[in-house]
C-alpha cells in the first residue's frame, strides 16, 4: 500500500504540466464563457446566456452537422484505405520498409503546408488539376467553389494527410496476429479476404477501436486544412465547429460566445470519446 502511494509521485510532473497548460486555460475559457465579452468593451456577466443563444443559433447546428459529416466521411475513408494498404504491405514480400517510409511522408508534412500544396492543386484555373485538364480542353468542376466538391476536397485532403497514420498502426497490428491462427485458416482453405475479415480483423479489434477513437478525436479539431483550403466556405459549406469558433473569436470578436462554443465542443467530443471508451471497456478491455 505504501509502495502504491509512492507511485503517485510519478504523476506529479505530468500533472503539474497538465494543470498549467490544460486545466488553467480550460477553466479560464469556462469563466469567459459566462460573460458577454466583446473585445474592446467591458465584459458583462450573463451566466449561461452564451450557451443558450448558441443552442438556438442555426449556424452552430449547421457547423456541428458539417463537422459530423466531414469527420465520419474522412475517418471512414482513412480506415478503409489504411486497412487496404496495410494488408497489401503485410502480404508484400519485398521493399516493405521503403514503401512504409514513402507512404508515411504526407503525415510528416505540417498540416498548414500540406493544405497549401493541396490548395495549389485544387485552385480554380491556376491549380495543377485545372491547368492540366483545361490544357486538354476539359473544364472540370469548381473544386473549392462548389459546396459539394469543396466538402469532398476537404475530406480527400484530410485523408491524404492522415491515412498514413492508419496504415502504420494497422500494419503494426496485422503483424501481431498469431501466425498459428493464420496457418490454421490457410489449411482450412481461407483466401485473403476470408483471412483478413474472419481472422486478422477480429484479432486486432481493440487496436482498430483505439485508432478510430484517436482519429475521431483528432478530426473533431479539423481546422488548419479547412482554414487554408476553403476558410469554411463557400458560404458555410465546410464550416466546422472549430472554424465557427475562430470566426466568433477573431472576426466577430465575441470572446465570451467563442469560449462557450469551445466548452461545448469539448463536451461533445468528450461525450463521444467517453462512449467509445465505455464501449471498449465493456467489450474489449485490452484497448485502453
Amino acid at each position, binding site marked *: 500500500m505504501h509502495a502504491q502511494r509512492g507511485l503517485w509521485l510519478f504523476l506529479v510532473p505530468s500533472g503539474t504540466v497538465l494543470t498549467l497548460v490544460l486545466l488553467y486555460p480550460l477553466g479560464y475559457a469556462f469563466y469567459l464563457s459566462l460573460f458577454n465579452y*466583446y473585445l474592446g468593451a467591458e465584459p458583462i456577466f450573463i451566466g449561461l446566456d452564451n450557451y443558450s443563444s448558441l443552442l438556438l443559433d442555426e449556424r452552430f447546428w449547421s457547423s456541428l452537422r458539417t463537422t459530423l459529416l466531414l469527420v465520419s466521411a474522412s475517418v471512414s475513408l482513412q480506415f478503409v484505405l489504411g486497412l487496404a494498404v496495410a494488408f497489401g504491405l503485410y502480404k508484400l514480400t519485398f521493399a516493405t520498409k521503403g514503401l512504409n517510409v514513402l507512404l508515411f511522408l504526407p503525415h510528416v508534412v505540417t498540416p498548414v503546408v500540406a493544405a497549401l500544396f493541396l490548395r495549389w492543386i485544387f485552385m480554380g484555373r491556376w491549380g495543377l488539376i*485545372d491547368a492540366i485538364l483545361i490544357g486538354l480542353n476539359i473544364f472540370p468542376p469548381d473544386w473549392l467553389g462548389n459546396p459539394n466538391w469543396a466538402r469532398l476536397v476537404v475530406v480527400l485532403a484530410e485523408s491524404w494527410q492522415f491515412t498514413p497514420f492508419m496504415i502504420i498502426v494497422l500494419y503494426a497490428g496485422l503483424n501481431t496476429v498469431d501466425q498459428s491462427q493464420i496457418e490454421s485458416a490457410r489449411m482450412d482453405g481461407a483466401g485473403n479476404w476470408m483471412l483478413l475479415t474472419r481472422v486478422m480483423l477480429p484479432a486486432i479489434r481493440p487496436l482498430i477501436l483505439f485508432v478510430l477513437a484517436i482519429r475521431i478525436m483528432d478530426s473533431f479539431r479539423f481546422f488548419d486544412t479547412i482554414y487554408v483550403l476553403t476558410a469554411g466556405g463557400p458560404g458555410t*459549406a465546410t464550416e466546422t465547429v472549430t472554424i465557427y469558433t475562430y470566426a466568433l473569436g477573431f472576426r466577430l470578436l465575441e470572446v465570451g460566445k467563442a469560449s462557450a462554443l469551445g466548452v461545448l465542443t469539448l463536451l461533445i467530443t468528450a461525450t463521444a470519446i467517453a462512449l467509445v471508451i465505455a464501449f471498449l471497456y465493456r467489450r474489449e478491455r485490452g484497448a485502453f
Partner: protein
Amino acid sequence: MIIDRRHALKALGVTAAGAAAGFPAPFVRAQGATVQMVSHRYPALEHYAAKMQSALPGVEVNTQLMPFDRANELATIALSSGASTFDIVYASDSTVLKYAKNGWLRPIDDLFEKYKEEFRLDEYPESLLDAYRYNGELFTLPGTANVMLWFYRQDLFEEAGKTVPTTIAEYEALAADFNSPARAGTISCQKVVDASLNETHWYMNAIGDGWLDPDLRPIFNDDKGVEAVETLKRITAYAQRGFTSAANDECTIALQQDLAVQGLQWATRCASMDNPEKSRVVGLIDWAAAPDGRARLSGDGYAITAYTSQDPELLFRIIATALNHDSMVEAAGLMVPPRGPILNDPAIAEQYRHFPGVLAALETAVPFPPVAEFYELGETITRRVQQAITGEMPVKQALDTAADECTTLLKDRGYPL
C-alpha cells in the same frame, strides 16, 4: 552564433529577470527599435510602404503587406490584446471606426495640426477627413481614395458591336453573350468578407435600398434586396472559375490574363492592366462608371496604434513623409489621390487614361454605412449571400437569416434596436 550551455543559461537568465520584473522579456519592444507596420497590399500601398522604409534617416521600418482580410485579422488580434506588436496599422474608412471605437488607435489631431504646413495637410478636403473621424477625433492620415468602377475589354466589345452597359440588366445580357468556357462573361469577387461585401454593396445600392435604415435596422432582406441578390446569383453563372474564393487579386489577374471580359473592380487596379510585366491585355481594357452607378466609395491610410512603444511624433512623420505631396503625385496613377490639388490637376488626369472612368464613378459612388461593426455584420451577410448564390439556401431565407443575425449582433453591442 554558438549555442552552448553557457549561452543558453544566459538567455534563460535574461528571460527570468524579465519575468520577475513583471513582463516576458522577449516580447517587450524598446523605443528606438524597428518600427513595425502592417498593411493591406496593392500597388499604391506597396509604393507607400517603400516610401516609409526610407522616410526618416536611421529609422528602420519593417512593413508587412498582405491581403485585406489577413491584415485586418492580424491587426485586430494584436490590437485587441493590447500588444505593442504594431506601431502603424493600415486602416480603411470602414475598419478605422471599429479600431477607434475600441480605443485601439491614438487620435492624431494634435500631430495633424502641428505638421499641417510642413506636409501641406490642408490639401486634404475636410469631407474626406470626416470619413476617418470617430467622435470628432481624427485617427487616420489618408493615403488613397478609392472607387469601384467598370473594367471592360474595349477590343471585344468593338468586335461584337456592343456598347458599355449602363444598366445591370444590360450587363447581365452582355455577360451571357460573352461567356465561354475559356473566357468568362464577367469577373465576380465573392470571397468573404471584404471582396464579397464590396461587390454585393453595389447590387444592394443599385437595385436594393442599401443595407440598413437610419435606425440601423437591416433592410437588405426586403423585396428589392432579394431582387439584388437574385440578380447577383444569376450573373455569377457567367463568372470566372473559383469566383467564390476570389478577392481583388484573383479578379485583377483574371482580367489581366484574358480570362474574363468585364466586371467591377477598384480604381487602384486600373494601372496594372497596362503593365506589360503582369498583363496580357495592355491597352485593351477601358473603364466607365458601374452600370446603374452606386458602386462602393472607399479610402484608406495609416493610423498610429494606442499601444505603440515608439514616439508617436516619429511615427506620424514617417506616415506623413510617405504620403507627402510628391509621393502622392508619383503614385497618382495607382489610385485616386485624396489630396484635392492632385485629384483636380488636369495634367495628371490627362496622364492616366483611366481617370475619366474614375471621375464618372465618383459621381454616384456610395460608401459603406458608417457603423463601427459593419465588417462584423459583413462576416455573416457575406456567408449567407454565398449560401444563396451557390444554391445552398433560397435567397430570401439567406437574407432573412443574415438580417436576424445582424440584429442580434447589433443588440449585443448595445444598439437600441
